[in-house]
């Protein structure tokens, strides 16, 4: 009897010891959620879409504008970091830090969008209204569309990842798509997003119906679908919410979110954009890695070409620097993604391509007049198209357009001297080529 009591005692002790062991070893963090509980109610649903916007900020704050500008002729390398030298020289290895980070950042945003699209329909929370649920899903579709568009124009057709990564099995067997397939996916997502999203009179830093239409106009322009490009650009231009601001500089000086802006990403004192640091000289506390090129400075400061857009640069002599991103004390420069000026120039180009030269000139001149310039003197279709190209170059000098414009119009060889078309696409990141059996590197890398 005594023996059995003892035995029970020992077993009980052991049991307590082991179960308390287990308990003792269970540690959970206080700043993260388990991925299985990541989107379950209204709070986490909102946090997820907020996180998705944050991911877009992640690649648009500095990296995307960098790879869209220093690769072309308006901006040159002036720092110490090799990744920028490689971009400037268009000798981009597959492990270039900036292109890798951009590619990675875009897919991070896409994975978040995928997670939201997959999880939100199942969120059971009475506080989540149908309208808000739709808005969040619509925003996720828009973010995914923007991501694939930004990948497509930089890297060509990419792997279309449409399921959230809960584990690595969802990756298997997805090969690269063609550029047309990637753009089709963008269109499909934009088409889904538009009816789900609201369109109010003031929001400029979240996706709205008009933002979807604006991106769609740009997509059609890239796909040379001129009529659709014109139609969608017109829908946005017609919206009274948007108007060009005068002088030019007022869209990039505080307060931001001007009527110029169709879509920009807002930063704040607690969520800073330090992109200015790459543009400003060290005598202003910056790194001065990105510098306006001499030919560009000559053009933008020419009253007949740059007009009031000379406000994009400051400094003199050998120390001219770009000031589009200029909130050095506060770091609240927005990321400019779509401005209404772009819609005018999209429509101008679409109209010119459709031989509506008068209409094209009218749109081009709207942008020129805002910059304090006389109307364009271009006459022929070719002249007008060239004038639009030049206008876009100056108007969006430090926004990610110039490189992608010259690639989509196949003018990178003539303008930049990069005749090897293989260099018109960025390389797929080296680590992906090494770790992903389903990916194929772009030719020439």
């Amino acid at each position: 009897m005594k023996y059995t009591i003892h035995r029970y005692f020992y077993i009980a002790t052991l049991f307590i010891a082991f179960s308390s062991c287990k308990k003792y070893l269970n540690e959970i963090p206080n700043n993260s959620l388990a991925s299985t509980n990541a989107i379950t109610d209204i709070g986490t649903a909102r946090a997820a879409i907020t996180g998705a916007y944050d991911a877009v900020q992640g690649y648009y704050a500095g990296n995307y504008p960098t790879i869209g500008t220093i690769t072309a002729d308006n901006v040159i390398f002036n720092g110490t970091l090799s990744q920028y030298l490689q971009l400037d020289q268009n000798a981009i290895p597959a492990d270039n830090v900036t292109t890798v980070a951009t590619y990675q950042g875009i897919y991070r945003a896409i994975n978040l969008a995928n997670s939201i699209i997959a999880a939100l329909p199942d969120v059971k929370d009475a506080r989540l209204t149908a309208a808000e649920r739709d808005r969040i899903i619509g925003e996720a579709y828009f973010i995914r569309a923007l991501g694939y568009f930004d990948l497509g124009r930089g890297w060509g057709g990419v792997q279309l990842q449409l399921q959230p990564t809960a584990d690595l099995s969802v990756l298997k067997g997805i090969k690269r798509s063609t550029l047309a397939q990637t753009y089709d996916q963008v269109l499909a997502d934009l088409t889904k997003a538009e009816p789900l999203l609201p369109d109010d009179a003031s929001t400029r830093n979240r996706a709205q119906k008009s933002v979807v239409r604006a991106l769609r106009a740009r997509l059609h322009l890239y796909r040379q679908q001129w009529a659709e490009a014109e139609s969608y650009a017109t829908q946005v231009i017609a919206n009274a919410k948007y108007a060009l601001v005068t002088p030019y500089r007022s869209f990039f000086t505080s307060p931001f979110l001007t009527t110029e802006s169709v879509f920009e990403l807002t930063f704040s004192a607690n969520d800073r954009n330090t992109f200015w640091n790459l543009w400003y000289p060290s005598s202003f506390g910056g790194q001065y890695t990105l510098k306006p090129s001499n030919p560009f400075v000559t053009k933008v400061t020419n009253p007949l070409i740059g007009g009031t857009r000379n406000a994009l640069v400051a400094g003199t002599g050998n120390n001219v620097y770009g000031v589009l991103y200029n909130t050095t004390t506060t770091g609240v420069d927005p990321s400019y993604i779509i401005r209404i000026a772009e819609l005018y120039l999209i429509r101008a180009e679409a109209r010119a391509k459709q031989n509506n030269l008068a209409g094209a000139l009218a749109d081009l001149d709207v942008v020129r007049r805002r910059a304090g310039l006389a109307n364009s003197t271009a006459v022929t279709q070719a002249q007008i198209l060239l004038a639009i190209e030049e206008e876009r170059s100056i108007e969006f000098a430090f926004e990610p357009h110039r490189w992608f414009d010259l690639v989509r119009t196949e003018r990178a060889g003539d303008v930049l001297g990069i005749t090897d078309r293989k260099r018109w696409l960025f390389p797929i990141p080296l680590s992906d080529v090494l770790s992903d059996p389903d990916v194929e590197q772009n030719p020439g890398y």
Partner: protein
Amino acid sequence: MYLHIQKLLLLLSLIVSTQVSAQKNISGKVLDESGNPLAGAVIKIAKLGRAQNIITSNDGSFSLITEYDSVNAIITYTGFDEFSTLLFQKTINTIQLQKTNKVLDDVIVTGYSVQNKRFIAGSITTVKASEIKDIPAPGINQLLQGKAAGVQVTANSGVAGGGVTFRIRGNNSINASVEPLYIIDGVFISSNNLISTGLGSQQQSNPLADINPSDIETIQILKDANATAIYGSLGANGVVLITTKRGRLNSKAKIQFNTYQAWSTPTNKYLLATGPETALLTNESRINTAIDNGLPASSAVLIPNPEQQPTFLRTDDLFRTARTSNYDISAQGGTDKSTYFLAFGYYDQESIVKPTNFNRYNLRFNYVNYLSKKLKLGNSINISRTFRNVSSNDNNPQGVINSALFPRSYLPVYNPDGTYARYGSFDNHLALIEHLNNKAESWRTIGNIYLEYSFLPELKLKSSWSVDNTSVYENNYSNTLIAAGLANNGSASSSESKSLILTNEQILTYIKSFGGSRKHNINALVGNTINTVLNQNTSASGTGFASNDLTAVSVASVRTGSSSRSVAKLISFFGKASYTYDNKYTFDASLRADASSRFGVNKRWGYFPSGGFTWRAGQESFIQKLNVFDELKFRVSVGLSGNQNGIGSYAALGLWNSGNNYLDQPGNAPTQLANPDLTWETTRQTDIGLEFSILNNRLTAIIDYYNKYTYDLLLNVPVPYRSGFASYLQNFGAVSNKGVELTLKFVNLERKAFSWTSDFNISYNKNKIEKLASDIALGASGRNISILRQGFPVNSFQLYKQLYVDPNTGNAVYEDVNGDGIITAADRQIVGDALPRITGGLTNNFQYKDFDLSVFVYFQEGNKIMNMNDFFLVHGNTQANIGFLPRQLKRWQQKGDITDIPRLTTFSGNPSANNSSANNYGGNVANLSSRYLEDGSFIRLRTITLGYNFPRNWISKWNISGVRAYIQATNLFTITKYNGLDPEVNSQSNNQNTTGYDWATVPQPKTIQVGINVNF
């Protein structure tokens, strides 16, 4: 000295023993200080040159038959002071031994126990305090450089209190920690840097600098599996056991005072191209570029009057003659029931590069009390405060050295209006020297209390509670005169970081000898530990200050805050047994079971066994008959140990992190994939050792061969970015380390007035990645110069291998590895690695009368250094804001020039052509040329010390028992082929996989020091 006494006693015993005749019985008892019998004590009898050992029985008694009336005996017992006496016939010889805390030659502290060195199967190196004292460096890990075979030590820079790279038998891991486990008086201490201020890529601090080297008695380095497996999951990278000084029972107070004063200067200074040379090179490059672009040479825009450009020497402003001061005072002693050691230390060191410095205050109190005959209470506690003035270097262009080294030498330091001038990405070096204000103050408490209860003389239970608590309080202020504070009207940050390690352990030890003539000896223990590691940080930062005199975050116009916290727990059970038969054969086995909160729920537990065998062949009669060996011993061991450090506390969980905010709303985003199967990284190690002494113990040699294989690496396996993740922490991959170690101790000469001893050690290690998912490239701010690739060592460098500079074109020609006729990323190849093949040290000690001289040489061979200073300063003008090194002047200029520095140009067309000017400095190669990779082997006179002991009769009248004064020089000269300032450098040290860079780093100092040690 000890040897002399022995000889004297031998002589004495001879005299005594000559008066003898018939067979007599001498008997007695060996007891401890409280009268308990000591079983298994060894009584060494010297009789006319023949040695005989007698071992006491269970009740401590012994007896021997001899023809003498008395014999001279030396009595030893593990953990007690050695005792020499005469044993007489007729009287009852009662010998009371005293417990010692001084570690004797033949007794060493091993994992959780004390063992007789002769029987140990593991590979353990002991370094005594006397071997490392008075070297002017604050961290004990740094002092071990060249002192122990199998241990590679590199100071990452010459920054006082800065990081140190310390590896025992090579790098075992890729993503988990490669740091050994440090244990001070039984306390598991943290060797993780806590300073959060970014200082470029250098490791911010050496946490072991918190401990005063003067407090240390001995250091044991446990290297093989037999020695480390008892630490299970913590032992894979080796274990450093540090024992601090303690008082002795029944000893009167001893007071010691030490001080030294030192003056340091750089071993070398930077030499840069002058203003006219810089302008000349710039113009030449611009002309060449114009020609390469098909334009007339006259179209190039040149610097006018290059030969009249001024020269501004910036780098000389960086250096100073830096002062180091050290003061220690300690008291130790004991009564019949207690012992104490109390010490206070102060250490203050300036770096040779302004404005950094380091100082430390230490207080230590070690105490033991025998509460009763069976119960003992002890503690050791160390409280230290360190202060660092830190500054950024390495890859931060706004670091102090960067801002002096890189700007072009013809550019003035000041603007015409007298303000600081800045160029490109760089700050003004004088502004930084005068205004940099980054302070880190650290308080650390390392404490241990234990209770030990003896149930029986052979059975003891020890329970110990330990804490290692570090708090670092950092306050940084960048005022408006330096670039970091310029843009935002001053910026400040303040942070408090805490690391807390709590450990509780219980150990039950059983030590017993039995059988006829004590032939069987058992030394066994079982125990458990519970370990908790907490890390937390709270920080605040602010920008926008009304004045440079206001530096508190609280008065900034914009303020933000942040915090972090993580907890990891570990539960362990372990056992160890060692059996020795007849002083000849020892069998060792241990097993440890560990469970860690870091791992997946499915695979939390890890089991780490080990086994070893020692054969003291020297005890066999057939060896003794050879009359060659004074000791001959073979060891073999095999075992497993684990690693879990260095990965996140929540590494196995699938997580969405919060704080991914937009529009000041809280946002979440996935950050980590779940891996419920995540488990231990395991190292299997085999060690074969040979130890022998010959020539009457004049030469002692220890030779070890080891083979380590680490598998199931905790590896961040790269995953396709389309997953939304960059990597997935998995148990994948393997690394091996194989090597040979040799330690030799010579007693070259031993005369009455003159003695000369030498200690030599040399180690060879070969590291190889045996299995890896795919290449992982990293390092040098995204230039990916370091690479991890299967089949190569960790810390390999991948570069374009420059074959030659074509004498006809002046263009660099690179090896076209894949033979496709063009130079692309596929032609980057591994051209060397940063791991030394061979490291070692040679110490010679001379003693002549009252003078002593010690000469210590350290050497390492086979490692490469990526000279990033050359990479940036030999750039062919592709770096518009960076000057040149004189090496750039050796560039190719005209047909027929033979050089390794290609023609100057910034042309970038056709970036994939070989022998094309695009790839000279830019293009696909982008200056990642093997011409900047250099041999980092060196041999260095690490220290040379001349000391003088004042004769007793001079000093005794002041009640002083000893005074030694000395003068010492450190790093007096170095032989190396390396062209940078100093070959002992590791700039990118905050990542273990980016070793071997030299990048705007504070070089090692050359130091002259004078000091005095006084004993009262």
